[in-house]
């Protein structure tokens, strides 16, 4: 005798009915959209975009503001709009053209860098600038003017974007390049999605002959040794350092200086396999205490047993070591994480970095991941771009009520006093006063903001009222 199907099955059946249908395009739904730091957590109306023509059509009749977003890999609230409408671009991921002579790829803005790599690597091309994750969209990479390990040679992402189309909520369209509508170009590169929707963009890819990276890892102790290594290896394209911010005393500011160049030896250019590991659950709060972190850091430091290793490494672990574990942010539990990322100018870089590191070590707030690297002199093209020549430093903090935010404010003030700035794409704690010092162009930039578009970040740091 058969039994009745379970409620779960009934539910499953009820949603089954829509299969094999031509896409109708635009619809809306209340759904959760988290930023990577999982803090803050705001509800918003999520509207997927599938076709370039969906915008601004989908905004008709909407109450409250809108914000175009991609993969939600920025950490704080730059990709959030409390009680607003998030236009998710990831369904808009088509290629438009590719010219193997010039390496220029034209694609819809919701394509991810992972999808671009899948297409480009087998054809012998690579991203001109790679962030620490490939799960970001082309539009998001432009909107945050992201940087990578080759900043000293390549500057930031926007420097490799010959042109893109910007569509405003009033339907007006601008083809933007450094020479065509240059003001809109400069406002939109690093403009955090606030100037309009980027519908498509061009990206200048660079030729490679192998997936492999000629990798070297060198242990160092202290900022002086780091600066010495940086000078010694300035001919290498990619450089980044891992830094232990927990240890004090003789291990203070120990780290591993990691460098790499694309291998010049022709090799199989097969596409990457799908990632398999998913961080399966939210870690309980106690899992991440200073003891487990310092053990992790010691382990990491000595994982590289010798002070200097040289090896050939696939580009995946070199550029995207954390992408191997999808949703690693769950390691920080439900409360989420904060990232503190600054750039300091050369004049204060060493002194400031040491002072900030001491402050962090003193706080005892655990952190797995601290990254240190130099920014080069080639200027970024956006009015609100983050990089400046000097030192860049980033690390994650778990959110501990009553402790994390005062520390973040203190560190932000120190960054300000040393003449540096914090990175909007990673921020959830900057004060309006700090923001206005970090980004002195902000009032000029505000004139380019689309009147319908806002973000929780923008409202927080400018004190603007919610739009509409």
């Amino acid at each position: 005798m058969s039994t009745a199907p379970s409620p779960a099955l009934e539910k499953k059946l009820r949603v089954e009915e829509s299969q094999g249908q031509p896409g109708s395009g635009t619809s809306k739904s209340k759904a959760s959209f988290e930023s990577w730091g999982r803090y803050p957590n705001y509800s918003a109306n999520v509207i997927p975009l599938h076709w370039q023509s969906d915008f601004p059509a989908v905004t008709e009749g909407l109450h409250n503001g809108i914000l175009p977003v991609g993969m939600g890999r920025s950490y704080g609230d730059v990709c959030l709009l409390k009680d607003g409408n998030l236009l998710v671009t990831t369904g808009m991921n088509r290629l438009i053209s590719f010219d193997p002579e010039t390496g220029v790829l034209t694609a819809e803005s919701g394509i991810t860098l992972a999808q671009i790599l899948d297409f480009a690597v087998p054809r012998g091309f690579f991203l001109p600038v790679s962030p620490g994750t490939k799960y970001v969209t082309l539009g998001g990479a432009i909107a945050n003017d992201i940087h990578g390990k080759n900043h000293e040679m390549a500057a930031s992402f926007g420097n490799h974007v010959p042109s893109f189309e910007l569509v405003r909520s009033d339907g007006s369209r601008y083809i933007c390049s450094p020479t065509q509508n240059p003001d809109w170009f400069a406002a939109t590169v690093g403009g955090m999605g606030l100037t309009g929707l980027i519908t498509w963009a061009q990206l200048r890819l660079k030729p490679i002959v192998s997936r492999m990276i000629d990798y070297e890892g060198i242990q160092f102790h202290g900022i002086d040794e780091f600066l010495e290594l940086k000078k010694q290896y300035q001919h290498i394209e990619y450089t980044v350092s891992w830094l232990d911010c927990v240890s004090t005393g003789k291990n203070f500011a120990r780290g591993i200086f990691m460098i790499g160049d694309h291998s010049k030896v022709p090799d199989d250019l097969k596409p990457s396999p799908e990632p398999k590991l998913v961080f399966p659950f939210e870690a309980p709060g106690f899992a991440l205490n200073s003891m487990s972190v310092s053990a992790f850091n010691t382990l990491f430091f000595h994982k590289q047993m010798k002070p200097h290793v040289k090896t050939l490494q696939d580009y995946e672990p070199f550029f995207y070591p954390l992408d191997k574990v999808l949703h690693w942010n769950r390691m920080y539990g439900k409360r989420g994480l904060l990232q503190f990322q600054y750039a300091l100018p050369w004049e204060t870089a060493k002194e400031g970095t040491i002072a900030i590191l001491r402050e962090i070590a003193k706080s005892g707030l655990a952190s797995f991941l601290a990254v240190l690297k130099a920014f080069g002199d080639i200027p970024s093209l956006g009015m609100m771009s983050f990089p400046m020549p000097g030192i860049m430093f980033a690390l994650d903090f778990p959110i501990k009520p009553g402790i994390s935010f005062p520390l973040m404010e203190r560190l932000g003030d120190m960054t300000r006093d040393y003449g540096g700035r914090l990175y909007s794409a990673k921020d959830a704690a900057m004060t309006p006063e700090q923001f206005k010092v970090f980004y002195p162009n902000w009032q000029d930039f505000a004139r380019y903001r689309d009147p319908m578009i806002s973000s929780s970040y923008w409202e927080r740091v400018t004190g603007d009222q919610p739009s509409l």
Partner: protein
Amino acid sequence: MATTQNRTVSQRKILVLGATSGIAEATCRIWASQGASLFLVARNAEKLNAVAQDLRARGASFVEAAVADLDDTDRHPALLAHAVNAMGGLDVAYLAHGVLGDQTRAEQDFNSTARILHTNMIAPVSLITWLANFFVERHTGTIAVLSSVAGDRGRKSNYVYGSSKAGLSAFLDGLRNRVDREGVNILTIKPGPTKTAMTASMKGSEKFADVNAVAKAIVTAIDKRMDTLYVPFQWQPIMFVIRHIPERVFKKLNL
């Protein structure tokens, strides 16, 4: 043996009807990266053009697109003949067009029901009749059709859509029985909930099947000359249970 059967995967000539649907587009991306020739048909010129551009860039050997309202069955013979001429042959016909329709409205309005039945069953049957005879003459070819698990048993929430798919599935079963011995393969595809533009607004859609995984399964099923594909595969046992619930119990359920 006909020459078309010896064509390698990369030389395959594929006709796609309803090419801007999420599942169809994802399937086409796989074929394009294999270097296939594609003839695409859809209603909306702008969307069709976006899809065609993408497939060209991904490495399709040939892409041509035609805008057509497939409800207009009178146009079918000319359209299909044009597709065959444009590609210089045909190996696979993939039917992915259809409408969900408005069940509540259809319950009150026969004309609305008739339109759903026309789009989802009558129009595909017109296309498939032409295609089947074309392939039978050549003793080769595959017709792959997106039907639905909704056609496996009528339910109150969507029986109009379901019956159109049930009719289509029954037609394909009979046709398969007729043409299999002629070397023609008929694949009935029954997808479960899949993440596409169409389903984006539905509750729980973030848990739906990944459209690229569904597309991959469809490409494999065509290559293996399968008869029926439930995708994701869990839908096969689920629908087995659904089909076997006694009617006196089933009629009381809220499905």
